[in-house]
């Protein structure tokens, strides 16, 4: 474990399907307390990258270290320090909220799981849904349950794939503030994907633009558009999506 090193270190990561590269030799890091936005159009390689960091997809080449631990060699130890929330990974709808959180608390090795579940239910305003089947909750409520799951083990690395996609603006704002607070207070590293560029500007310390599996741009989301002659981060995103080669020219 390297308390002063990066929480996440990705080195020359590749994933190819046949001859087609989905992720093409990317390297980046996430520092303690830092929120890094992983941006790019559909098919850019964001979810493939996240899947590899979660250990559910084997890289073709390259390495991933979480809190200094090599994911390929010490998978369980690395994943004890990780958690995630994604819109495409809802929790089982046939278990209640507290049952789901208890089961995942045990899977992540949380010690006093009952107390931790109660604390998260209170923190994410889910107490009223404790004994409700997760599947009957609204999509926004389910997102909050998924976020509670993601925070169960107080992970050193938190991966959030469009975490506010189904939340109303008020709840989304509250959630962003909460995650910023937790990251700053506990030194958590966060990798955040979103298609909402205003959200990215508000929450991320640094962004990485992916296109065709490669990192095309990297920098402060508030300064990056100006540095590339674009009016806003959204304009820059559209340029990356439509004309990535224009940005590659010096």
């Amino acid at each position: 474990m390297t308390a002063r090193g990066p929480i996440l270190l990705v080195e020359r990561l590749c994933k190819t399907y046949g001859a087609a590269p989905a992720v093409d030799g990317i390297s980046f890091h996430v520092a303690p307390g830092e929120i890094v936005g992983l941006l790019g159009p559909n098919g850019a390689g964001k979810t493939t990258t996240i899947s590899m960091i979660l250990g559910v997809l084997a890289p073709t080449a390259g390495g991933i270290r979480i809190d200094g631990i090599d994911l390929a060699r010490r998978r369980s130890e690395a994943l004890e320090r990780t958690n995630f929330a994604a819109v495409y990974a809802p929790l089982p709808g046939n278990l209640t909220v507290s049952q789901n959180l208890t089961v995942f608390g045990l899977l992540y090795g949380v010690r006093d799981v009952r107390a931790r579940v109660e604390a998260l239910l209170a923190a994410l305003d889910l107490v009223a849904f404790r004994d409700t089947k997760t599947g009957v909750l609204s999509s926004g409520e389910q997102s909050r349950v998924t976020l509670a799951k993601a925070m169960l083990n107080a992970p050193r690395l938190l991966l959030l794939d469009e975490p506010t996609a189904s939340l109303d603006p008020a709840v989304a704002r509250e959630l962003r503030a909460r995650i910023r607070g937790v990251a700053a207070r506990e030194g958590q590293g966060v990798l955040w994907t979103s298609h909402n560029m205003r959200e990215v500007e508000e929450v991320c310390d640094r962004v990485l633009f992916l296109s065709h599996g490669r990192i095309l741009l990297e920098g402060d989301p508030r300064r990056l558009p100006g540095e590339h002659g674009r009016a806003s981060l959204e304009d820059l995103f559209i340029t990356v999506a439509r004309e990535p080669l224009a940005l590659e020219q010096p």
Partner: protein
Amino acid sequence: MIGPRVRRVSAVVLRQAYLLRGSPARILPLFAWVAIDVVLWGFISRYLNLVAASGLDFVPLLLGAVLLWDFFSRVMHGVTMAFFEDVWSRNFLNVFATPMTTGEYVSGLVVSAVLTSTLGLAVMLGLATAAFGLSFAAYGLAILPALLILFLFGIALGILGCAIVLRLGPAAEWLIWPIPAVLSPFVGVFYPIATLPRWMQAVSWLLAPSYVFEQLRALTAGRPVSWGALGVGALLAAAAIVLAAWAFVRVYRHAVRTGLLARYSAETVS
């Protein structure tokens, strides 16, 4: 103090317990089909005892065999059902992105199956004893290795079934349900293996339950049990578990390599 491995295995078992507790539709099948089999074969056995002149007691011969075969089926389906819950709820990404290893996951499925099948066996035996006077005592000590062999073989086929569904996709679960029915003609649940044509016998002697049913039949006919044959059955069952675990790990690694695990809910699995 409970270690993280035990905690993770218990999470898989606890999930299954929560599902059973919250759903009578899941509890009923643990007993319903077995109860129907006990009643049906109980009356058939009683009728044969009345009309047959062979002097054989058909209750341990047929009803006992049905009960033991149901036990094997319960064990196998106990493993696959716990796995299918993750298939049906599209939970693979959540589960396999945790620190849990494949060994811990499979152990959780097996423990779940042990609990549900033991409960099922107790109910089956209670019903068969109360209604038809079946007693496992009729089999003597041979019942212990017999149950162990059927249990191990059920676990093996359950793990193999999970590997098949993981590899071929959710639609392949319909290949798994009929496995006990497909195997039953080969393992001689109701008749001696010698009844079968030679090619079927060759298959039979590769299947651990064949040794169980042959020996229990010998016992009920008043012949001595061959402990050596039961030993061969136990070895075959243990080998089946090793092969099934190997197959599951191979399929899991393939799924991680190809991205199948990350996008498992898709029906376009290949």
